[in-house]
Structure formats: C-alpha cells, structure tokens
C-alpha cells in the first residue's frame, strides 16, 4: 500500500461528471463538467484554463472532496477521495480568512485544528508570516490588511499544514497586475523550495503558461470537457514578468490561444443567451 501511494499520482480524476439542479428551479439539470479525466504527478504544477462558466472550480471542489461528483471519482495518492481530502490544501478565490481572528491566528488555525496546542501553533505561525513577507503584521485583523496581504495570509494558512497537493482557485484574480506578478513569483519560489503538487485554476492563459509544467484547457460550458493538454518546457526558475517576452513563451501562447479562443467565444455567446 505504501509503495502504491509513493508511485500513485498526487491527484487523479477519472471520468468526473458533475450535474446540478438547474438554477431556474424547474426540475431541469445543468451539467457543469462532463467526463473529465486527468492526473497530476507528485511535484507537478498544473494549470487548468477555460472560459468563464466552464466548471473549473467544480473540478477543484471534487479534488478537494468538498463536492461529490455525479459520476466518476477522484483519487489522491491512490486513495479514493471521500469527504474532505486530507492531503489537499485549498486556496480560495473569495475571501476565506476568519475575520474574527488576527493574521497570526488565521495562519495558526490549521495547526490548531490538527491538535497542536495553541501556544505552539502561534509560535510556528510566526515564521510562516515572515516567509510570505508579513512579519510584524501578525496582530492585524483581515479587514486591516490590503487585498494582497490577505492573499499572503491565506497562502501561509494553506501551506503551514504542509499539504501534499495545493489546489488554487484563481487565487490572485482580485489583485492588481503588479501585486499579482509579485505574488506569482513568490508562489513559484515557495513551490520550488519543496515541490508540492499544485493545481492552479485561472482564466488568464499568460499566468497559466508562466507558472506551470502543464496546461489543461477546458471547453466552454455547459458540459465542459478537457480538450487540450500542453506541456510547458520553459526553463525554471522563471520570472513571470520577464518570461512573457521570450519567443518560446509567445509560441506556446499562440498555440494554446488558438484553441482557447474558440471556447471563449462560445462561452461568451452562452452568457449572452442566458
């Protein structure tokens, strides 16, 4: 079993289909993703791109164990995901910090939930705040921090419990472009330090290429499918701002965008119909 876990991929989705009751509540159903299968190797950085409403978050929720698929299944290190996936850390798109806890307490929360005494948890949270560049901000409450700082706290909060696989749902989409590139670089540095598996959801193709080892493309919803897979062979370490200028990057971008553009247009037509 232990050997199987060592060789098994960090994440494996097999034929995942998610069907929801239709929001208009007339008994019809809405299929967000259809028959999606992919694997993420240990230590691999994979991005999933797709147009708005293509069920990117749905896939991530299945991997996290927050959502049970209507069909198919998710495996994490060879173990079927039933209930919360204990190997996974999740960084949400929306604000997910507990507003009544200070930055330090928020970072320490995961350790506390795992039975670490409060004092020790706080002691260990301190260095993590420093690692995301927030030394001295420990006693601030989330509302006293800027959007970028809150994301840093969330990053430290996710990573402190040392998840084997990190799921990120457009974590930086709410940030301005400069802060965003800084955060992307910092994330890559942290990731390089101890290679966790990362599944990174984004609608920004440039971000996906700059960060990842592999980019997966989802078709427009409803019933999104995985329609493309691209290996990103750019050298590491990368600087997300500079790598965008290299011819290699531009070639990759052109290739993937050729496929993604049609889906984006389809997705846009869908939203207009709705």
């Amino acid at each position: 079993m232990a050997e199987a876990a060592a060789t098994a991929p960090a994440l494996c989705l097999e034929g995942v289909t998610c069907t929801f009751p239709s929001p208009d509540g007339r008994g019809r159903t809405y299929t967000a993703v259809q028959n999606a299968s992919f694997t993420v190797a240990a230590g691999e950085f994979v991005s999933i791109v797709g147009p708005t409403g293509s069920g990117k978050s749905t896939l991530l929720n299945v991997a996290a164990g927050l959502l049970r698929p209507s069909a198919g299944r998710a495996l994490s290190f060879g173990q079927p995901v039933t209930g919360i996936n204990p190997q996974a850390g999740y960084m949400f798109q929306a604000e997910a910090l507990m507003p009544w806890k200070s930055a330090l307490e928020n970072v320490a929360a995961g350790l506390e939930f795992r039975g670490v005494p409060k004092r020790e948890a706080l002691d260990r949270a301190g260095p993590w705040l420093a690692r995301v560049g927030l030394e001295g901000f420990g006693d601030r409450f989330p509302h006293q921090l800027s959007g970028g700082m809150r994301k840093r706290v969330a990053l430290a909060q996710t990573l402190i419990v040392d998840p084997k696989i990190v799921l990120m749902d457009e974590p930086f989409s709410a940030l301005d472009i400069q802060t965003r590139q800084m955060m992307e670089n910092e994330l890559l540095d942290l990731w390089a330090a101890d290679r966790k598996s990362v599944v990174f959801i984004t609608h920004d193709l440039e971000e996906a290429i700059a960060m990842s080892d592999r980019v997966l493309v989802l078709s427009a919803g409803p019933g999104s499918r995985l329609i493309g897979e691209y290996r990103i062979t750019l050298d590491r370490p990368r600087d997300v701002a500079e790598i965008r200028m290299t011819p290699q990057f531009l070639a990759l971008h052109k290739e993937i965008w050729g496929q993604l553009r049609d889906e984006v247009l389809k997705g846009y037509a869908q939203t207009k119909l709705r």
Partner: protein
Amino acid sequence: MRSHAKRLPSRPIILLLQVGVLVGFFLLWHVLTVTTNLLSPFFFGTPLAVLERTFKDFASGAIWYHLGITLLETALAFGIGTVAGIAFGFWFARAPLVSVVFDPYIKAVNALPRVVLAPIFALWLGLGIWSKVALGVTLVFFIVFFNVYQGVKEVSPVVLANARMLGANSRDLFRHVYLPSALSWVFSSLHTAVGFAMVGAVVGEYLGSSAGLGYRIHQAEGVFDTVGVFSGMLVLTIFVVAIDTVVTVVEKRLLHWRPQEAQTTH
C-alpha cells in the same frame, strides 16, 4: 480625522452644547411652572423639587435598595435570556426541520405584546423578582435568538469550506467559526437586549411588586406625587445611561476585529 463632510466643532464644544440643551430644558420647565405658573406645579412638578427629591433619595440611601433590585432583575433577565437565546438559536439554525416546524409559532409568540404576560407571571411566580425576570427573559430571548440564528446562517460558505479544508472537525467549526460569527451578531444587539431586560424589570415592577424603581414610580403615582414620579424617571434615565455606557465599552472590547469606519491615524 478629516472628511469632506461639513466639519464639526471640537469635542469640548459639542459637550458644552449638549449640557446647554439640558440646562435649557430645565430652565424652560422652571419658567413655565414656577415663574409664570402657566403649568401647574401639581401636575408638572418643578425641576428644583425633582432634583432635590432625587438628591435626598440618594443621600438618605432610600433609593439604593430599589436600584439594586431593578439591577438584579435586569442582569438575571439578560443573562438567562441570552444563554437561552444562544442555545435555541444554534439548535434552530443547525436543525432545519425544527426551524421550519416551529417557525410560525416563534413568530406568533414574538408578535405578542409581552406586557400582557406580566399579570400571568405575577400569578405564577409571585410578586418577587422572578416574575419580573421572566418578563425580561421573554423580551431578551427573542432578540438574541433571532440574532444567533442569523449569525449561524450567515456564516460565509467560503470561510466554512476553508476551515474544513484546514482540518476543522464539527467541534472546531463550532468554536472557531459558528460561535464567533453568532456572537458578533449578539454583541451588536447588546444595547437592545440590555434595554429590553430593563423594560421587562421596570414594567413588571410597575404592574405589581414591593420593590424596585418601577414600584417607586407606581407608588408616587398612586398618591399624586408628581415630583416623586419625575424623580423616579430621572433616576431611571441616569441608570440606563450608565448601563449603556458600560455596554458600549464591552462591545468595543469584544468586537475589535470588526471593520470600523475609515480611519487614518489613531
């Protein structure tokens, strides 16, 4: 703090103006009743007599006993009502079937003017403090109940999912997510809850008792002692303002994580 709104005068000046309003009110009262005799002092009292009576009551210590009784009733009503409200609020918010079934009855009971319960409570619990506490509890309970219910329901699903991903079990969720969220709602209704606890106590005393501020006012009324009635109201007002100040301090302490209005330097 700077703002684009019209600039207000500094704090001491505002305080001075506030005191001015009070003095002006007493002066007007004095002029109407004593100087011009437009209003009969028998029906309206005179400010000097009211102040003198109030001062005497405090000096002789006669009022302290009654004040203590009312305070005790208020505290008990607030404590019991809050604990019960939190417990039931949580239960209803976490058990949808219970909340759906009891919903019309909760609304019906809450719509009932609670004053009509006072004679029933006096009948059941006697004229001592407990009939007043019971009346106060029926008022406080619903405020806290609805706030806790709302607080538990309004927990952000993302915060909840995040806590679960970080490994929180249901006990952790209660302690670290549901309870703080619910308590923030309870604290924000603290002023109302304390106020209602006091209304319960005073109204209960007024309708039948042998001690308390409400009893004092009722007694004075029974013998057409207008000065006594106004003096009782004055004491009650001072008492309410004092309690409200304490509540504000407590609230600031407990809700320090809440966003305040935009502020620059402290």
